[in-house]
């Protein structure tokens, strides 16, 4: 059992120092619940819509580790704390929408760079950011996991790669402006719920969505963070539009029986090579 806290966080726009102080307060509040992994949203330390401000606020992964280790120290956290956090990353003159898996206070375990940069409608990421090129699972002290950021997860192929790569949990930091108010929930929230459940059930993985909240120039980040079990059941769901924390235990022991009942991942593993020629064909790279 790995005790998780999903921190549905509302940063102040562009105020990294204040947001770190706010994060410290939230960790203090979570401490009695003894989480081992805390999952923060996309762009959690700055807010999502920065436009050209990305250049001023992006951090290297080592600066990020230093800042969050400072928070770990400031709150006097005893022992290690793993944190998944979305941030704007600077590396050799390029900027990325990234999320890091940190083992505080000591090390950066992995950094995922968002591959699918939404540049349509209200979004304009590719104007300011470079595209990540990798989707891969990685090992933590608790097991093998993967990170996908926001739109990365809206393409089912990314989660398939992560699951084939051995991920038993997929962490999804997100920032999703609420839109489409016809139904019980905003349309984007419905989409997240549908996707998270479908992906979890298809591959027999945990899906952990941490979704930003707060208004950014009229765009209301929706929240509605989720913890979804490997059978596709919602284990915990955060309210919309306000800060909240979801606590749940991730139990790797539940994955084998779920996959035994529904062996779709091993089917995929077996059948995917058969489909690769077609994949190449539709991408215009050979085949008939």
């Amino acid at each position, binding site marked *: 059992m790995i005790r998780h806290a999903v921190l549905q966080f509302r940063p102040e726009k562009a105020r990294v120092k204040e947001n770190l102080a706010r994060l410290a307060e939230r960790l203090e509040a979570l401490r009695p619940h003894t989480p081992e992994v805390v999952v923060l949203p996309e762009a959690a330390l700055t807010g999502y819509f920065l436009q050209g401000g990305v250049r001023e606020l992006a951090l290297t992964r080592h600066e990020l580790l230093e800042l969050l280790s400072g928070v770990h120290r400031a709150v006097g956290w005893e022992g290690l704390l793993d944190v998944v956090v979305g941030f704007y990353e600077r590396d050799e003159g390029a900027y990325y929408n990234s999320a890091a898996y940190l083992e505080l206070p000591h090390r950066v375990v992995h950094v995922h760079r968002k591959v699918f940069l939404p540049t349509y409608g209200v979004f304009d990421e590719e104007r300011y950011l470079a595209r990540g090129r990798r989707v891969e699972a990685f090992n933590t002290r608790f097991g093998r996991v993967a990170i996908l950021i926001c739109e990365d997860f809206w393409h089912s192929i990314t989660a398939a790669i992560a699951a084939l790569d051995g991920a038993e949990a997929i962490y999804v930091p997100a920032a999703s402006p609420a839109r489409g*108010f016809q139904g019980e929930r905003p349309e984007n929230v419905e989409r997240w719920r549908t996707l998270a459940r479908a992906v979890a059930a298809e591959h027999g993985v945990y899906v952990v969505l941490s979704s930003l909240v707060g208004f950014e120039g009229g765009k209301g980040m929706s929240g509605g963070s989720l913890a979804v079990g490997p059978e596709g059941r919602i284990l915990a769901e955060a309210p919309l539009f306000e800060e909240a924390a979801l606590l749940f235990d991730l139990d790797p022991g539940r994955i084998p029986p779920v996959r035994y009942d529904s062996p779709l991942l091993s089917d995929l593993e077996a059948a995917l090579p058969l489909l690769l020629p077609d994949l190449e064909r539709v991408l215009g790279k050979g085949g008939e």
Partner: protein
Amino acid sequence: MRIVQAPKAQESLELNWPLVADFLTRFIREELAWRGYEKAVVAVSGGVDSATTLALAVRALGRKQVHALFLPHRDSSPLSREHAYLVAETFGVDLEEVDITPMVEGYAAMTPDLTPHRKGNLMARARMMVLFDKSQAYQALPLGTGNKTERLFGYFTWHGDDTPPVNPLGDLYKTQVWGLARHLGVPQAVVEKVPTADLIPGQTDEGDLGVRYLRADVILEHYLKGYPDAYIESLGYTQEEIGRVKERVNRTHWKRALPTVALLSSTAIGEFYLRPLDYRP
């Protein structure tokens, strides 16, 4: 065998009003908070847009934190006054009345060729002067009341009623404001009356615009989403209506933008140098 026929898919303007009300309430609270405000000032005209804005502001901030202004001109309809007071009473706020007649007529007396249309714009700008002065006096942020239909049609006074920095209704069509107003308990007489800017005696919005809101809003929603005219026609709208709606939108893009600046450098504000309005590191 049962045969199940799916209904024709169509864009719907009917929203989940409690969800919208909750969202807009948070919007007002948060957009004021980061600007350093806890209070709002709303100009109440007696119409449905300002009544709905007032209702949302009271929900968001509490009635003691909302200053409602009534800013009549001597030519304003008596019904506007009646409804403004009814709305204020309904939502439990005091209504401060400032007569704009001396401001408007002072200029009008010096301007013999002032047309009714120009005088209407003058009224809207006089109201904005009072609204912003009261904003400073009360340390309360002015809330805009313009809806999406009038914004798209350019049916407002530039730098007049579009001026307030925070506008909760600007992405709701007029017919959607009616739905939200009903949900929020805006008095029926206000929701159901014929919409008017009340700048010229006898004026109505739909008379000025030449199309009914109920029809214009459906056309607008489909046009903005990229449906071709033929599709909109297939929903029961005439070519003439569609043409009129599109023409109004396309004649007024400038009115929904900041003033045009000559671009000379690669650091031109809002062209090269781009920062969101809430960016404050």
